[in-house]
């Protein structure tokens, strides 16, 4: 993909983000932060590429460390969001 198509995706995604986030109810702003935390750990994709590649031992170990850190976030972030959301109940 060339730079300009990637930039297009990025700019359009910013607009989607803007409208989607304004529609989030303020009562759920804490879960919003927890779940954005979890999904920003999609950076694990880069970590996996580094950890899977051959060629540089140091790079591989940095990648593995990043995989571990991102995994803390992925499992922790989704689990804590799930736990919080389960607490929101309606009357009765």
């Amino acid at each position: 993909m060339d730079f300009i198509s990637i930039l297009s995706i990025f700019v359009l995604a910013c607009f989607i983000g803007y409208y989607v986030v304004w529609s989030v109810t303020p009562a759920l702003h804490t879960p919003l932060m927890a779940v954005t935390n979890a999904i920003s750990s999609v950076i694990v994709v880069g970590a996996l590429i580094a950890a899977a590649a051959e060629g540089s031992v140091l790079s591989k170990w940095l990648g593995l460390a990043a995989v571990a850190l991102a995994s803390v976030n992925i499992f922790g972030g989704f689990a804590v969001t799930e736990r919080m959301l389960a607490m929101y109940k309606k009357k009765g």
Partner: protein
Amino acid sequence: MPEGAIDSWVALAYLIAGVCFILALRGLSSPASSRRGNRFGMAGMALAVGTTLYMHHVASMAEIAGAIIAGGGVGWLTARRIAMTAMPQLVAAFHSLVGMAAVLVACAAFLNPTAFGIADMVVPMLGKPFAVIHPVSRIEMGLGVAIGAITFSGSVIAFLKLNGNMSGKPIMLPGRHVINLAVLAGILGLIGFFVTDQSPWIFWTVTGLSFAIGFLLIIPIGGADMPVVVSMLNSYSGWAAAAMGFTLHNTAMIITGALVGSSGAILSYIMCRAMNRSFISVIAGGFGGDSAAAGGGQAIDRPWKRGSAEDAAFLMQQAEQVIIVPGYGMAVAQAQHVLREMGDKLKAHGVRVKYAIHPVAGRMPGHMNVLLAEANVPYDEVFELEDINSEFAQTDVAFVIGANDVTNPAAKTDKTSPIYGMPVLDVEKAKTVLFVKRSMGGVGYAGVDNEVFYRDNTMMLLADAKKMVEEIVKSLD
């Protein structure tokens, strides 16, 4: 399948993962759809990870599995055990991990650029072949490592302040604005230079300076401004992911980065608006430091009324409607459960009970809502400032617990007040205000005295928030 066809499937998979993340946030528009949204998020993540592992020749599957299990285990256990009152520091800690992961990935990409497909091999006539990183990738990588490092060190400081390992008071270095601007300019200049020269010293200096600036930016910011800081760091962690997405040409990362980046930015904006402060003044820091001593002085002499738990119970029993206004003090005292008990008792007496939440109550956006939800308060009894503020005038009792600045009428009338212009809850319009507070001496984070304490219709309930509410519950029997 031919190579090109596989690439298209992979790109499609990452795109679907990105869409899943959009749906995850979209689900949060109401508590009813929120859990389905969270499942979409998990599915998107599984798809992104699965696709990456499937696509790359993995030389070290066992190690990767080990890293995922170790990290995932720690994360899952923490998520299960963490107290809801500790959510702000947990989120800050998680932000620091995203930042560090971004730094590590950028370093790995710098050390082994061919694995990421961002470099061309150059084979000179003499000497060893070496990888030349694409100029655009160098900028993206430089920005990625810089934002990641700022996110990491900034979040560590935010965590230490929220967790109480470090004083919430702003720490002011002399000439800090000059230092900060110089360091920022240095980072940007070096990233620019990095395009022409891919020497390791430039990359590592950018990394080092970015760690330093993250630290310097957050230490002068006081405890009450933490909701803005936590949201801002949330935003940074997104931009870091987006920058790495540019480096890797990965749509899932770019979409996610943009979503998270805008989410954090919008939350910061909402928090700033709720405090009537500009983003710049929050970042410049220093709020809630020196002014505290000045405002507290004249408070002592003025007459005020003190009430007991029995008085409070009696007043609320007689009321038609009670609005409870919780703040950070409720979280500190862990009073949310006993508060809900009080609400139940009142409802049994035929009193209508509602909760009013100011956007900056607590230490992060939505903090109070989560605590009340934890205590089984139904979310349709909990209202935001603009939805309930007009009701105080027709309310018999406003019960303020652990909140202060967000109820201060000086924000509406006193142009000299540091909180002038901040939207506040009109508690003083209620027939009676019951104000739970530890002692009369202390003032709120903004360091200003609260007019509400001395009004005729206010009764101060001086005690630990949890103990006071427990006694009220006893008196309600």
